[in-house]
């Protein structure tokens, strides 16, 4: 029975695939303290690699082009630290101070609604408990947001250094590692690697462009309608857009809460905030996604959503962001392995039959 399982192409593929997954998981556990900067550096490498290649085409050496890319990255990082980050931090603290007002405003809205329906539950302990709990969650989220901003500042120092070495040496290192494959699996290994690398690069570049466009569109929209902290809300919408399907839904919550917090409640502001998000989502779905990340991930939406929930539960926000590319990579590796192993098994059967 066991012999039959290992002789079957599917059995062999599952065994090899499980071994690869286990090795990657062990490596991820080993590298867990630096996993987030590493993921960020690889994402930046995927974006900056074409720039480095363009510089090489202009006659720059690999080291010179990598150094130029590093300088560009450091300039952008410096600009973010000196200009955007303090501004975002101010907006974050404003948001933190506004949160009690938001909940208070929601409570009065709830009371008015129930009173108009003739139900007197304004002093209900359940409602009170819910809003107190929600306020605590909101405050915790804001404090965690502040911590993320601090970690981001640390990453902005280390990530460019890792990215520089990736841009300069990644190709040599990759060749060195893949050349260790046995002769019989050399071409198959390269084929699978090339497909994975191509799809991941497409996805990372696409999702980064999509998030940036979303961030700019919503920031401008919130600024025009006069919503408080428009750039922070826009940046949040952009970051949440990194999570497929679930992210855009989460991105609507904060702007609507901000609009609700206005005293007296302005219904047009709530409507405008929803409209900004809806228009941005429509442009995103109709123009941005088809042109920048179409076909980058060939996965069923249900698998993606389940993956996001499971990865989010296991690794938090980063898990939700990396769920889709990880599933896509696993899918390509599995298909590549199955194709290669099945061909080998078919050839072996043909050979045995001929003999």
């Amino acid at each position, binding site marked *: 029975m066991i012999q039959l399982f290992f002789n079957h192409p599917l059995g062999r593929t599952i065994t090899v695939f499980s071994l690869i997954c286990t090795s990657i998981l062990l490596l991820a556990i080993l590298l867990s303290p630096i996993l987030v900067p590493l993921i960020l550096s690889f994402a930046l490498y995927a974006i900056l690699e074409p720039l480095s*290649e363009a510089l*090489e*085409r202009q006659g720059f050496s690999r080291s010179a082009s990598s150094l130029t890319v590093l300088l560009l990255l450091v300039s952008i990082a410096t600009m973010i630290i000196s200009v955007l980050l303090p501004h975002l931090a101010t907006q974050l603290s404003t948001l933190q101070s506004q949160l009690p007002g938001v909940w208070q405003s929601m409570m009065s809205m709830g009371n008015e609604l129930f009173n108009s329906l003739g139900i007197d539950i304004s002093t209900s302990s359940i409602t009170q408990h819910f809003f107190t709990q929600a306020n605590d969650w909101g405050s915790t989220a804001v404090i965690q947001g502040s911590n993320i901003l601090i970690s981001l500042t640390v990453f902005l120092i280390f990530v460019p250094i890792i990215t520089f070495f990736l841009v300069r*040496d990644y*190709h*040599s*290192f990759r*060749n*060195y590692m893949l*050349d260790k494959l046995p*002769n*019989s699996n*050399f*071409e*198959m290994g*390269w*084929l699978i*690697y*090339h497909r994975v690398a191509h799809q991941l690069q497409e996805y990372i570049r696409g999702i980064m462009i999509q998030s940036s466009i979303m961030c700019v569109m919503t920031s401008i929209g919130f600024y025009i309608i006069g919503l408080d902290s428009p750039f922070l809300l826009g940046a949040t919408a952009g970051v949440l857009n990194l999570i497929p399907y679930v992210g855009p839904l989460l991105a609507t919550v904060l702007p609507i809460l901000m609009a609700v917090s206005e005293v007296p409640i302005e219904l047009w502001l709530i409507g405008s905030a929803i409209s900004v998000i809806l228009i941005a989502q429509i442009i995103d779905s109709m123009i941005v996604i088809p042109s920048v990340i179409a076909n980058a991930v060939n996965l069923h939406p249900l698998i993606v959503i389940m993956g996001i929930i499971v990865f989010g539960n296991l690794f938090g926000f980063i898990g939700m962001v990396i769920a889709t590319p990880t599933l896509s990579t696993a899918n390509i590796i599995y298909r590549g392995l199955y*194709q*290669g192993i099945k*061909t*080998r098994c*078919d*050839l072996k059967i043909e050979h045995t039959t001929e003999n």
Partner: protein
Amino acid sequence: MNFKQPLWQNLFRPKDDRISEVTEMWMSTPLFEKIPRKECRELVKTMHPRHYKKGEKIFSSGEIGASVVLIRSGGVEIIAAEKLLAELCPADFFGEVALILDEPRTADAIATEESELIFFLRSDLEEWVKRSPRSGAQFMLNIAVVLAARLRHTNILLSLQNS
């Protein structure tokens, strides 16, 4: 202090004498005709040398191919449908169709003696074409010439068989 082996040298960098020799071999093939030697040399640095024992299979018919192979030393037999198609020696190349098509190989390649083969992968070719579009276009033209010559040769053989 030994400056020939600096501490920060690139450990993955191939040795220069091998690169020069392989560059000359590729330059003598029709694939690298009219391609600047400097470009070819840079490309050779990204290629993959591999060693095969006598009788070891390099690839089989039906497997997906991903590279063209140059023989640096040793020998290779190309066999299709149990017929010997070619016996190749150093500086010969084979498997160039895989640079264009993501399709299964149509013949078996077996090392007839201890051999060192240089693999030039399709992914490396694609990266090179992006980096140097002019030379890349020339290389594609050269492949087209090689494949057209092979097609012509096969047509002549078929017509001779039929007549």
